């Protein structure tokens, strides 16, 4: 396995030339539907009186366009696509690949390489644009597309009847009933033994330094007054410059490196 970050320069060394082709969206969508080995069409390169002509012909089975709605079979993607060739211009365009086979199975990557293997595949020698041959078909397709796009994301719809099912008056909400039931069964918090409470507090303060009184009540399940008394013994109440006022242990009780001191 090569070093992470090391770029595989075989493509550059071999001066592999590739083409960079700009393809319309609908065509790339059709290509994703390709079956089998992924054959999508044929590329025809002609040399006509000094000019090279490149044209791509889409396979028959891929011309059906899935549009939402009724017109599915009516519109078909055009088949002929001449390529417009352009020079690379001043830029040097290189193609590099990133092989990210996923972090989870780093060792057992499907392609046998580690995550994020970067390789230089080659240099772009020709740029081209794939244009559809203008035909009736194409125009219809475009019309469909435009219609779809021009629909607003939100639209208003008139209702026949007013909506009356939202909020009905209720004697007492279900949520409230549950809450009261829960409170009842919990009962009032009983004062446990002071030592036990202290133990609970110390273990809590081991985890975090600052606690809100409400949180401590939750943790220890003690009545507030009792808890506050205990806290006044072992802790300090500081404003800390923030809104919430928090409790923390007194310095002599604190020992935040390893074990905690107590009493």
């Amino acid at each position, binding site marked *: 396995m090569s070093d992470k970050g090391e770029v595989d320069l075989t493509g*550059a060394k071999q001066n592999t030339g590739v083409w960079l082709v700009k393809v319309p*969206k609908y065509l790339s969508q059709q290509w994703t539907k390709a079956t089998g080995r992924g054959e999508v069409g044929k*590329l025809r390169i002609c040399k006509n009186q*000094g000019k090279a002509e490149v044209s791509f012909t889409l396979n028959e089975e891929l011309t059906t366009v899935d549009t939402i709605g009724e017109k599915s079979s009516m519109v078909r993607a055009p088949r002929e696509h001449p390529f417009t060739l352009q020079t690379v211009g001043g830029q040097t365009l290189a*193609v590099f690949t990133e092989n990210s086979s996923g972090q989870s199975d780093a060792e057992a990557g499907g392609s046998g390489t580690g995550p994020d293997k970067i390789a230089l595949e080659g240099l772009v020698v020709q740029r081209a644009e794939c244009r559809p041959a203008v035909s009736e078909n194409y125009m219809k397709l475009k019309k469909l597309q435009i219609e779809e796009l021009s629909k607003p994301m939100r639209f208003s719809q008139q209702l026949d009847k007013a909506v009356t099912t939202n909020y009905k008056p209720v004697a007492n909400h279900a949520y409230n009933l549950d809450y009261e039931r829960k409170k009842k069964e919990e009962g009032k918090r009983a004062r446990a033994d002071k030592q036990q409470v202290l133990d609970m507090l110390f273990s809590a303060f081991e985890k975090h330094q600052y606690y809100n009184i409400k949180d401590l009540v939750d943790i220890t399940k003690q009545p507030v007054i009792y808890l506050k008394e205990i806290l006044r013994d072992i802790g300090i109440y500081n404003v800390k410059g923030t809104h919430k006022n928090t409790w923390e242990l007194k310095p002599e009780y604190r020992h935040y490196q390893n074990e905690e001191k107590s009493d």
Partner: protein
Amino acid sequence: MSALQEQRKCSVVRMQCACSYSCMFSQVINGTSCSAVMTSLGSSSSSATEYVVRVPKNTSKKYNIMAFNAGDKVSCSTWTQARMERDMSNRRIYGEEETPDGAAGSEFGKKQREEARRKKYGIVTKEFKVEDQPWILKVNGKAGRRFKGLKKGGVTENASYYIFTQCADGAFEAFPVHSWYNFTPQAKHRTLTAEEAEEEWGRRNKVVNHFSIMLQRRLRQQEQGEEEEEEGEKGGKKKKKKGGRGGDLRIHDLEDDLEMSSDESDGSNGDDDEAKSKAKQDKGPKGKGKKKKKKKGSDLEGFEDSDDGDFEGLEVDYMSDESSSEEEEPEKPKPSKGEDVPKGIDEMSESEEESEEENKNEEDGKEEEEEEDGKKTPVQVEKKKKKDSSGESDSSEDSDIEGEAASALFMKKRTPPKRGGVRGSAGSSRTGSRPGTPSIDSAATSNTLRAAANKLEQGKRQTTVPSSETPATKRLKMEPSPQSSSGKSTPQPVSGKSTPSSSDVLLTEDAVRRYLIRKPMTTKDLLKKFQTKRTGLSSEQTVNVLAQILKRLNPERKNINDKMHFYLTE
């Protein structure tokens, strides 16, 4: 593959396409080999070959484009080895400061609370996406080039890019391009920081040898690091080496040269680099210090060009709290100088009224300062002052105007130095716009006016600016008095030199005593009585004389309406 061979032959003629095709078909063929194969061109040969295009479905490889600029002259074939990784330096911006998690310093439920708080305020923090981070590409190891690749947005939004590569079997495979990165080379040489660059920009007209800039900077850095060493080594030999290569091509002022040259001759030959570098260190900071001083000196000179400098100090009483950033130095000594003048009255009265006036004038001054950068013409400034004054109560209106006039006068004087280089044009435009002010309203002016106007003309010829101000201030003074409205030229003599001919009022002790016996008056009221245009004195002189008179009279003081009034009982 006859078609292929034919293509090879034909391709040579069409140069622009030729190389691309040859590259595509086989990795080995390049342009030269094509030309070797060339045979007679078959005209009008339209041969077509068809290739199957495949779009592989299940690749884990993501194809990206690495774009270099043409000017960088990047040739991938020269790379022997390369390393590329993501630039994670932005991570800390996104990940907020983590408070210690657990144990000391942490709060229970802090994270949840923070999150709830952020949701409540609608703060949406962008996530740190590794995918979008720039790449750092290092070519040819430590000594090679470095590139930074920034992701280009919007590439895959409307159209998709595909990479067509030809496979061994002649078929094409198309891979979609996942993202596009623009790579730019990173400078390995040292660069100046923003402040240093600005400094050098300011000196660009003086410095001939630009190569020395970086050298100086390096020396400066060295010097900072080795300060103790340097001090210990200030020997004679080192000092003599001042004529180091560092700044000797700079255009120094003559003094600099003279100072340096005498030492230069001694130690300029046959030194080791060490000594020289140390000498350069020595010289470097010294040279810089001198340059800085020179610069400041020249700046100072520039500002003190005109006579206006004389009046700059006067304003202090009203505007001592502010000083413009540009002119801190010239103004600092002046305020202290100018403080004497208004002090007379200050000591005398100790009145709130004074402070009130001061405050008001300070405000005016502040506004003046703020707007001044916008090149307000004097007209506008005064109009503003008029507006200010109109808000005051009637009783003190006149005296306020008087005060304003005084402050306006002072401030007018101050504005020209601020304008600095602009002054020339502004001044000229101002004067140009008022070429006829003395001539207009000539009919309506009295003798004194005309006399003063003539004086004004003379004053204008000497320095454009002060004269241009004074018509402005005079305009203000004209307004209270019932004169015609447009194109005022008031007769106020510039520096109080003109004669108080036919003045109705003389500022004498008797006059003051008369007033004070009649009723208690504030200093403002007194000043109003002795209006400068009627006494023929400048406001400064009025203030002076009045102060002296009051000192002599030593009137009694009474506080009426929170204002200090003077009165005499005889």
